[in-house]
């Protein structure tokens, strides 16, 4: 058995596909492709498939990761990519296939682009002010489903404005991500737009562009 790591994109309207539906979509694409995947043993055999960091519904992804087990030595990485892309819907495509370098458990943060829209001239200064704040509290459910206040500013590692027009503003953000500490980008969008009647967080285009993990003392691009 050989486990391969697939880097894929999830774009356009595919951002509304839930994690569970995405898994089923991959399973059926694999069935159609006829690729020799490994099945689990047991009463109800299923394909072995894990995703590094599920995307929130409503957020696109330019570099997402899925680990899938194939039968040893039967297909090349290039074949996997080619045959899967023929059998995946257009908005979900495999970008590359390779070895598993890092562990998903070591993922610590992710980079997003966020395009905000306003009905009137956008108030850039106000947005910059937002990132200067020490404390912005939101209620967040922890794993035990208990609501707790958190300061989201502690989860924002970096930010910058990368594009600006009269009515739009595009940000690059690096936010904590992974099993231990995670901040959903749409929460940041909601807080930025809060109280501004010309802006609606639901209009924001959010895309996850990179995932980072800890490797010793340094951050590495997850791959």
């Amino acid at each position: 058995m050989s486990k391969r790591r697939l880097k894929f994109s999830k774009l356009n309207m595919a951002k509304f596909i839930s994690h569970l539906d995405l898994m089923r979509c991959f399973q059926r694409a694999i069935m159609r492709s006829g690729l020799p995947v490994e099945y689990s043993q047991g009463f109800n055999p299923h394909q072995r498939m894990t995703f590094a960091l599920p995307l929130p519904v409503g957020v696109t992804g330019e570099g997402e990761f899925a680990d899938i087990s194939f039968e040893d030595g039967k297909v090349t990485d290039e074949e996997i990519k080619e045959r899967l892309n023929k059998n995946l819907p257009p908005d979900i495509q495999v970008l590359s296939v390779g070895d598993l370098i890092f562990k998903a458990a070591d993922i610590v943060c992710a980079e997003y682009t966020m395009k905000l829209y306003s009905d009137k001239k956008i108030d850039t200064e106000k947005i910059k002010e937002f990132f200067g704040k020490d404390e912005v509290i939101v209620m967040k459910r922890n794993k035990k489903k208990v609501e707790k206040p958190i300061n989201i500013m502690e989860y924002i590692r970096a930010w910058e404005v990368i594009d600006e027009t009269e009515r739009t503003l595009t940000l690059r953000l690096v936010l904590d991500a992974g099993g231990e500490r995670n901040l959903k980008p749409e929460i940041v969008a909601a807080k930025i737009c809060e109280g501004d009647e010309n802006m609606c967080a639901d209009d924001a285009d959010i895309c996850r562009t990179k995932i980072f993990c800890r490797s010793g003392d340094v951050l590495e691009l997850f791959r």
Partner: protein
Amino acid sequence: MYKKKFEACLKRVQKPARYIGNEFNSIHKEMTSDMMSFAFCFPDVYEVGMSHLGIKILYHMMNEWEDTVCERVFAPWDDMEQEMKKEGIPLLSLESYTPVREFDMVGFTLQYEMSYSNIVNMLKLAGIPLRTRERKIGDPFVCCGGPCAYHAEPLSDLVDFFILGEGEDIMREIMQAYKEWRGSGRTREEYLETIAKIEGIYVPSFYDVEYNDDNTIKSFEPNRDCAPKKVKKRIILNFDDTYIPEKLIVPFMEVVHDRIMLELFRGCIRGCRFCQAGYIYRPVRERSVKRLVGAARNAIDATGYEEMTLSSLSTSDYTCLFELIDELLKITVDKRINLSLPSLRVDNFSMELMEKVQKVKKSGLTFAPEAGTQRLRDVINKNVREEELIRTTSIAFEGGYNRVKLYFMMGLPTETDDDVLGIGDLADKVIDAFYQVPPEKRKGRSVTVTVSTSLFVPKPFTPFQWEPQNRISELERKASMLSKSITNRKIIYNWHSSQVSFLEAVFAKGDRRLGEVLISAVEFGCKFDGWTDFFDYEKWMKAFEINGIDPEFYAYRRIGYDEILPWDYADIGVNKSFFIAEHKRAYEEKTTPSCREKCAGCGAAQFGGGVCFE
């Protein structure tokens, strides 16, 4: 144009995947001005509509034509409807997010009466004028097909034309006529006059209805030459030659029937007297094993589905069932595909068949004896005998099953309290059958029998079309009597609200005066009546009241044989005289053999094919 706002709406609703389209195998054609566009509307949510075989057939078939683009439209769930209204977005198609009102044709499939309010609601959301007389050049034509189209008089004022029978051939004729009409400068009425001459097309505005003082129909006549006195349904005789969609759309989200549906045949040989499907699809026409296996193989390759089901009215009546299952298992087992067989009749279910299906997965067993006593089963012509049911369940218990579901109807014609109590007795006997099986062969220490009863709805085009429905209070009395009589805790008894069944009877047997009731009901907020969260009986009653219509007239009245019925214009190929004879035989408790045992002379032989000439 609406895409950005539409996307924002999707971030605020449950299950946004219902509205995104772009599934694998969905078809995206450019809608150029020389193309004809057809919006195929299913009046329920995505996951219900995508489980329907008819939409798959016609969607893929029409999109194979170079001059036509067919896109899907489903009813938005209430949360999405509210969001779209807030943003001023009209009803859009799934493929290209095009407003439905911009299509040339808007076609609804009528699967059951309780979806009529959704049709009205979808027309409203689309911004299409509700009544046919309000539509002008530039508005789409609204048409309806499907099983209820034979008796959808309540929709007559809202629908430009109905398509009676199987859509595979007739759709091309309708679109061809449209192509010739479009841009010719002729009126909408002239287009309808052209297609009224096509066999299977019913244009309700071309018929005038007069009523007697007692509200029965006095006359129902065509008001112009192009409209036939009776509209005969369309069927396809050589069923092997019909279109089978293979590159089926594979939804992202889970839908109700999330699997390949292999249609073995159309029609049913049985003639259960309560069952409309058993008559309107006559005569039975089968596909060959070779054609089915080929289609199954292609569909598996094209979809990657992990499950396939054999889908027909009474699947086990397929003449080459064993051969077919053998051939299908050769494909499915290796690919880990689960083959499931629904709607098995108890009388020919066998151990052998069960073992074959079990190769892949063991699922629960469901039987529908429909009535509790042999006497009543004879009345309804459900040719299932108690000993057969017990024999089959015993075999199932030996095979390791320990859960059985039994479905019954209450309020059937001639039903007595003894028949009702017979339901509990039958369930007891199934429990006894479990304990007759040697313990080493059974699975689990105990057995569960789930009994469900529903209220019988008399339907047009059945021998019971003249019958009154049981009143809700009468059903409640019977259900509580049965419930009290069931003491065995291994039997779970379920029964549900009969208010929906009452309205179903009203709209199944209703006439065109109900159109305004429908419009009022939707104004009051009625929609998704098949969903208990939405069904609001009080609103419906208010809608009847303000329109001065008594719903009980339609549901609770015994209709005379000589009365003009609101659905008499439709000719399904089965004669009224046959229904009268069958109705009388029911009261004599006489059964009628299946089409394969002995022809009962229903009239369907006039089509010149199918089981009538086997």
